[in-house]
């Protein structure tokens, strides 16, 4: 008996040490700790925070930026950046809405339009970066302006409303109690996790961020991989536009201004190195939720909206500062 108890204690000790070890070494550890700390603080500050309803609410709010951040993670892992995601999302949503409302085409075509717009602009970015050898920050900055302009031209500046009712399912529907946007987001994260961790392509994404020359000289098709990550970012922007359009029930050419910065913040808060090569997609999910909790919590606590910007900035700085040693 005492023997058994000893064994148990030892294995518990080992378990604890293993957990500690993991905590000190996993790139996910720090984002998780941040998430927990901020959640607990918010829970103390507002009684309404830890309700099932509010947690689902946060996740639903997070979904759009969360989906954008998936593509952003791919791009940042290769050492690039995509400033165009917000604008591409707005253009995809506006054109999809336009196709359905103004041309009366069926919803499937609308969805397809959104995806094609996202894919097309993503390929354009990727082509300019990979074959044009231009820095991604500049290419996507230009694409951002182009996509915004096109969206406004297409819609004439008016939001496009009058969408068929089922579109709202993507934004406000629920399966059981789980909001549809949350399900869409989680599915996208699951797919991204598989792609990054279980496929050769995923390895190549990391390799390019780690040492592009080495990857290229060893025979990795670095240009194709770079094309692909920007295409993925375009597609996730299109998927985000589906959720957003469902939430707003209209195509908004000026939606998503500044979302690219939120997506970048989510990726970096999630522990991904901005220089590429290191990071986990689950970290991005945690980062996105952390940002969402900040927005939600500061609202719940009733902080002056101007002050919210300041507090958010400080918390991001603090989180990255503490996290820099882990990376």
């Amino acid at each position, binding site marked *: 008996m005492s023997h058994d108890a000893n064994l148990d204690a030892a294995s518990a000790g080992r378990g604890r040490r293993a957990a500690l070890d993991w905590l000190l070494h996993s790139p996910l550890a720090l984002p998780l700790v941040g998430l927990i700390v901020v959640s607990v603080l918010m829970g103390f500050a507002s009684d309404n925070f830890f309700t099932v309803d509010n947690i689902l609410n946060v996740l639903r709010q997070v979904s759009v930026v969360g989906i954008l951040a998936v593509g952003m993670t791919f791009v940042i892992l290769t050492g690039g950046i995509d400033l165009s995601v917000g604008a591409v999302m707005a253009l995809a949503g506006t054109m999809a809405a336009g196709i359905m409302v103004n041309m009366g085409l069926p919803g499937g075509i609308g969805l397809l339009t959104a995806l094609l717009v996202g894919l097309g602009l993503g390929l354009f970015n990727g082509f300019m970066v990979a074959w044009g050898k231009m820095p991604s920050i500049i290419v996507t900055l230009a694409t951002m302006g182009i996509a915004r302009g096109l969206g406004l031209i297409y819609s004439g500046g008016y939001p496009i409303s009058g969408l068929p009712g089922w579109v709202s399912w993507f934004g406000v529907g629920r399966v059981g109690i789980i909001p549809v946007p949350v399900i869409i987001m989680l599915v996208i994260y699951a797919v991204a996790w*598989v792609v990054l961790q*279980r*496929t*050769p392509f995923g*390895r*190549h994404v*990391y*390799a390019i961020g*780690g*040492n592009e*020359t*080495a*990857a*290229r*000289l*060893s*025979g*990795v*098709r670095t*240009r194709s991989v770079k094309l692909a990550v920007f295409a993925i970012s375009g597609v996730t922007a299109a998927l985000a536009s589906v959720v957003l359009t469902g939430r707003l029930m209209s195509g908004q050419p000026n939606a998503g201004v500044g979302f690219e910065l939120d997506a970048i913040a989510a990726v970096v808060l999630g522990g991904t190195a901005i220089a590429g*090569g*290191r990071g986990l997609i689950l970290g991005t999910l945690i980062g996105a939720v952390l940002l969402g909790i900040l927005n939600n919590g500061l609202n719940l606590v009733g902080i002056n909206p101007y002050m919210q910007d300041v507090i958010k900035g400080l918390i991001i700085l603090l989180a990255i500062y503490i996290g820099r040693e882990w990376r």
Partner: protein
Amino acid sequence: MLEMKDIRKSFGRIEVLHGVDLQVNAGEVHALLGENGAGKSTLMKIVSGIIQPSSGTIIVDGSERHFANYDEAIAAGIGIVFQEFSLIPYLNAVENMFLAREMKTSLGLLDRKAMRQRAAAILRKLEVDLPLDVPVARLSVAEQQFVEIAKALSLDARILVLDEPTATLTPVEVEHLFKVMRELRAAGVAIVFISHHLEEIFEICDRITVLRDGEQVGSCTVAETDIDQLVEMMVGRRIENSFPPKPAADPGANVVLEVEEVQLRRGGPVSSFQLRAGEILGFAGLVGSGRTETVLSILGAYPAARCKVRVDGVEKRLRDPADGLAHGIGLLPESRKEQGLVTEFSILQNVSLNNYGKYRQGHWFIDFKKELACTEDAMSQVRVKAQGPRARVDTLSGGNQQKVVIARWLNHDMQILIFDEPTRGIDVGAKAEIYQLMRDFTARGYAIIMISSELPEVIGMSDRVCVFRSGGIVATVQGSAINSEEIMTHATTGRVQHVA
């Protein structure tokens, strides 16, 4: 003049120097020898204040010193030429030489004229003539090395550390350097000289200290020892004749690669050559003669002025090293860290980097078990010394890193391997193993192109040798014509040079 006592240094939990002593006198050239990873560079970084020792004392001119950074070491009369280049690519030679030690006019602005004159004077002493106004990135590797040396000389140091300065120099250039070193020695400067070229040690050095695995294994004068004994001290065992025997040439072997014409984008001669199965084709030439650029142009990694290639007799257009891989051509790049390895990846991930064709599960996914098995197999074939396949490659010694890059090609059905400077910065023990690996490859029927700046290696390994000068092949030699006079004659301006 310089004395180091019981120096210990740990990186994280790993101790790499276990109490090293070193004593260097004024007016001597002191060789510091050891295998890759023995701790030579680490020790010298401690001398110059770039890293701090975990314990131990440094005594300069009889008084104990502690250098918090390089500036303090410089103030104490210490100068160093780093093993890794420390030049700024877009600044010119003058700006690089005086970086952080600029001469200023009374207004606090740069005194560009004075710096230029002083730079020119130092370079004249080294007998090199290089353009002072272009970014150093546009200089050849040897010229860059001289800028590096001139930068250290400009400090007027009384203790000068040269960490593998000759690795990128030709014999003639090495002679210029030695001449300056002798002058400095005569002027009473203490010089620490690190090199893997043991002949150089006997030419220039007075005393020798040998490190092995972070321990000092001995100190002696040059007169007391010979090459074999040094090698044994470094490696801990005798190395028999390091070049494996050359098998007889097979003139009937298939031509696996025929380069009909290739010309570099920067111009130069149009080259052509053939490569046969089972042979080692050496590419010799001075540093910067365009060997690397030529093979990169053939592989499509570099834009070429023109390039026409047949693989197995069929004309192919290679646009990317990936196309080379598809045709069974693999490259071992000249710089492991910059071009060969993803240093943050594990051995496993580096070995399988370009090889997922073999480890697929379903069509899309990686078969992790197979990946691990194949990697372990490849690691044992090239005898990588590491904790395991999941060790990060940046924790390995240079020789083991090089073997990881080689291991990458073992699980492919390769035909042609291009080894660019396969033994640069690699100690004698690992060198012999790599030579044996190359022979194992040719025995399997692989063809090898070996680019090397070390003549003995070219001579000892190659079945035929293409000699490069100013961007292209100027001669191809074989058989008994593979000797240093012949090769150097073609590689330089045509005058016969006598090489030590």
